[in-house]
C-alpha cells in the first residue's frame, strides 16, 4: 500500500510539472466544450424552441386582430413586432423589410376581418337560435367578403419553415374564430335569460382539449431534450478523457528511454505495484477531468447564455460511469505506452486512434445520424459505450441498471488492454 501511495505522489509530481500534459487534459476539453456548445447551440434547437421575430400589420383594429395578437404574444415561439419607431407597421413597410432579409415572416390582418368573422358568427348563431327556438337574433348581412389573413415570407426561407409557421398561425386564427363564435352563442343565451354560470361554461369550451407534448421520462417533473449542452459536454469530456493516452504513453516511454523504468524493475516486488499505482493515479485524474467538465456544463455555460447541464434524476450513477470511462481510457494509454517503443510511434497512434474512435462512436455526430453500417461499427468503440452510458443518465434519467452493461463493457475493455500491457512489459524485459 505504501508503494502505491508513493507512486501516486510521484505521478502527481511528474504530471504537475508536465504543463503541456495538464493543458491537454483540462484546457483542451474545456475549450472544446465551450466552443462546440456555443457553435451547435442554434442547430440543436428546432423551430419550436427558437423565438422568431414576426412582423404583424393590423389593418383591422378589431377584436379578431386583438385576439391573434395577444395569442401570438403569449406564445413562446414568436416575438411580435407590430410597430416601427413608435408608429404602427404598414403593409408596404412589412414587404420591404422581408425583401431586405432582416425578418423572415410577417402577417397582415386585413381591414374588416373582424367584421367579417363577427358577421359569419352571427349568421350561424342566428341559425342555431332559430332552430332551437331561443328567441333572440343578432344583426347580420347576407353578403360575405373574403378577408384572408395574409402571410409573407422572406424569399429565401425554406419550405419546412413556411409550413411549420403557417400551421402555427392557422391554429391561432382558427382558435380566435371559434372563440368569437362561442361568444356570440353565449350572448344569445344571455338574451334568452340564462344564468351566468352557463355563460362561464361556454367560455371554458376550449380549456383542457387539444394536444400537449409529454416527455418520456421515468418520473414526472423533469424534462430534458437533447440540446447543444447535453450533447457537447459529455462528448468532449469523454474525448478529453481518452486523450490521457498522450501523457500516459509519453511518460512511460520517456521512463524507458531515460532508464528510470529499469530502476523500478531492479527493485524487488515493485513493478506490479508501480503499474497499479500508475493506473490508479491516472484513473482518478481522468475521473476528476470528467467532473471538471461537468462543472463547466453546470456553472460556466449558463454564464454564456446556454442552458445548464442537466445530470438526470440519478446523478450519482455518473460516479461509477465516469470511473469506468476513466479506467478504459487509462488502460488504453497504458497499452499504447507498453506496445510502442518510441514516442514518435505512440503519439500519432494515440491521437489519431482517439479521433477515429470518437468519430466512430458518435461524439462528433450523434450515432442516430450515422449510416446503418457505421452504427454497427460504433459498437466496438469504447467512446461510444462511454457516451451512451452518460446519455442514459442525463437524457433518459436512467438508473444504475440501465448502464450496468456499459460499465461492464468499459471495465472489461480496460482489463484486457491492461493484461496485454503487463504481459508485453514483462516479455520485453525477459525476452530480448
Amino acid at each position, binding site marked *: 500500500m505504501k508503494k502505491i501511495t508513493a507512486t501516486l*505522489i510521484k505521478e502527481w509530481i511528474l504530471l504537475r*510539472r508536465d504543463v503541456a500534459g495538464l493543458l491537454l487534459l483540462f484546457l483542451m476539453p474545456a475549450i472544446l466544450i465551450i466552443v462546440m456548445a456555443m457553435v451547435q447551440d442554434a442547430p440543436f434547437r428546432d423551430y419550436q424552441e427558437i423565438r422568431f421575430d414576426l412582423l404583424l400589420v393590423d389593418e383591422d383594429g378589431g377584436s379578431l386582430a386583438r385576439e391573434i395578437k395577444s395569442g401570438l404574444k403569449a406564445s413562446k415561439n414568436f416575438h411580435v413586432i407590430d410597430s416601427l419607431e413608435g408608429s404602427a407597421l404598414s403593409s408596404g413597410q412589412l414587404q420591404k423589410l422581408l425583401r431586405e432579409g432582416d425578418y423572415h415572416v410577417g402577417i397582415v390582418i386585413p381591414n374588416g376581418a373582424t367584421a367579417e368573422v363577427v358577421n359569419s358568427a352571427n349568421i350561424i348563431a342566428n341559425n342555431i337560435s332559430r332552430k332551437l327556438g331561443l328567441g333572440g337574433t343578432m344583426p347580420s348581412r347576407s353578403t360575405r367578403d373574403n378577408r384572408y389573413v395574409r402571410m409573407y415570407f422572406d424569399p429565401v426561407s425554406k419550405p419546412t419553415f413556411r409550413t411549420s409557421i403557417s400551421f402555427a398561425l392557422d391554429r391561432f386564427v382558427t382558435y380566435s374564430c371559434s372563440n368569437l363564435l362561442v361568444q356570440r352563442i353565449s350572448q344569445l343565451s344571455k338574451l334568452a335569460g340564462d344564468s351566468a354560470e352557463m355563460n362561464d361554461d361556454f367560455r371554458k369550451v376550449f380549456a383542457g382539449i387539444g394536444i400537449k407534448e409529454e416527455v418520456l421520462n421515468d418520473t414526472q417533473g423533469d424534462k430534458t431534450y437533447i440540446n447543444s449542452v447535453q450533447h457537447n459536454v459529455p462528448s468532449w469530456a469523454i474525448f478529453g478523457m481518452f486523450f490521457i493516452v498522450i501523457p500516459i504513453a509519453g511518460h512511460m516511454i520517456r521512463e524507458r528511454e531515460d532508464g528510470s523504468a529499469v530502476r*523500478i524493475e531492479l*527493485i524487488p516486488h515493485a513493478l506490479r*505495484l508501480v503499474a497499479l499505482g500508475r493506473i490508479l493515479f491516472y484513473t482518478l485524474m481522468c475521473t476528476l477531468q470528467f467532473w471538471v467538465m461537468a462543472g463547466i456544463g453546470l456553472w460556466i455555460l449558463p454564464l454564456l447564455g446556454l442552458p445548464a447541464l442537466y445530470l438526470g434524476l440519478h446523478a450519482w450513477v455518473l460516479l461509477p460511469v465516469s470511473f469506468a470511462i476513466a479506467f478504459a481510457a487509462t488502460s488504453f494509454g497504458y497499452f499504447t505506452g507498453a506496445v510502442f517503443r518510441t514516442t514518435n510511434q505512440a503519439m500519432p497512434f494515440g491521437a489519431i486512434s482517439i479521433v477515429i474512435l470518437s468519430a466512430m462512436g458518435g461524439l462528433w455526430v450523434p450515432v442516430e445520424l450515422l449510416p446503418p453500417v457505421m452504427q454497427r461499427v460504433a459498437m466496438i468503440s469504447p467512446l461510444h459505450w462511454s457516451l451512451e452510458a452518460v446519455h442514459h443518465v442525463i437524457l433518459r434519467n436512467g438508473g444504475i441498471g440501465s448502464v450496468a452493461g456499459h460499465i461492464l463493457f468499459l471495465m472489461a475493455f480496460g482489463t484486457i488492454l491492461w493484461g496485454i500491457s503487463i504481459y508485453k512489459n514483462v516479455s520485453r524485459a525477459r*525476452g*530480448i
Partner: protein
Amino acid sequence: MSSAIEISGLYKKYKGAWSAALDGLSLTAEKGRITGLLGPNGAGKTTCINIICGLVRADRGSVQIFGHDAGTQIQTVRSLIGVVPQQIALFENMTALENFRYIGSLYGIAQVTIKERSKNLLERLGLAQHADKRVGRYSGGMKRRANIIASLLHQPDLIILDEPTAGVDVQSRAMIHEFLKEYQQAGKTILYTSHHLDEAEELCENVVIIDEGRHIISGSPKDLIIQTRKQTDCRKLEDVFLHYTGHSVRD
C-alpha cells in the same frame, strides 16, 4: 575467502543476433573486494550485469549471488545487490531528493531512514546543495553521482556499477573512487566495469578481462602485469589488456 558472485558457463544469444553476446562466461568475485570487469566495447559486460540482476535471461549457465541462484531467486538477489546502470536511471523531472524518496519507498524503507541516508550520501558525493534541483538540470558528472546514490539507499552488500565514471571529469572521478574505496572498507563487495584501465589498476584488487563473451584472464593487476611481461613488453594494465584483446576496433 568465499565469493560474492559465482558465474559459470553463461551463454546468451540475443534474438536476431548472429553471434552470442556471452559464450560460456565464467567468473568469480570475492566478498569484500573490488573486482573490475574489463573488456572492449561489445565484450558482453553489460549483458553479464543484466543477467545478474535479472533484466535479461540467460540461455544457459548459472549465476550465484551470496549463494542465491539469480535464475530462481531473483527477488532475493535484487534485495542484496545495488545496481548502478550504465544509463542514468532517474526521473529527470524530479529533484534528487524526490527521486530518492520514491525509490526508497519502493524498497520499503521508512521515510526518516531514507532522509537520513540520502543526506549522508548526498554530502559524501558532493551533491548536498543540489538535493532540491531537478535531476534533468544536473551536469553529466552530477547525474552519475546521483545515479550511484539511488542504488545504495537499501544498503546492499554487493554493488555493481556499469561504467560509473563514463564521461565524468577528473574531480568527479576521484570523488567516486574515494567513495567506492570507503564503501569497500565498510565490508561491501564491489563489481564494476570501466574503460579506464589506469583507474581499474589503481582501484581493483582483482580484474577479469573478457572478450567476445568469454573469460580471457583474471587476477590482481600486479600479477597480470608480471605474467604478461614474460611474453611481451608490459608496464601497465593497458598493455596486458591490449596483449590479450588485440588492437582491432570492436563493435
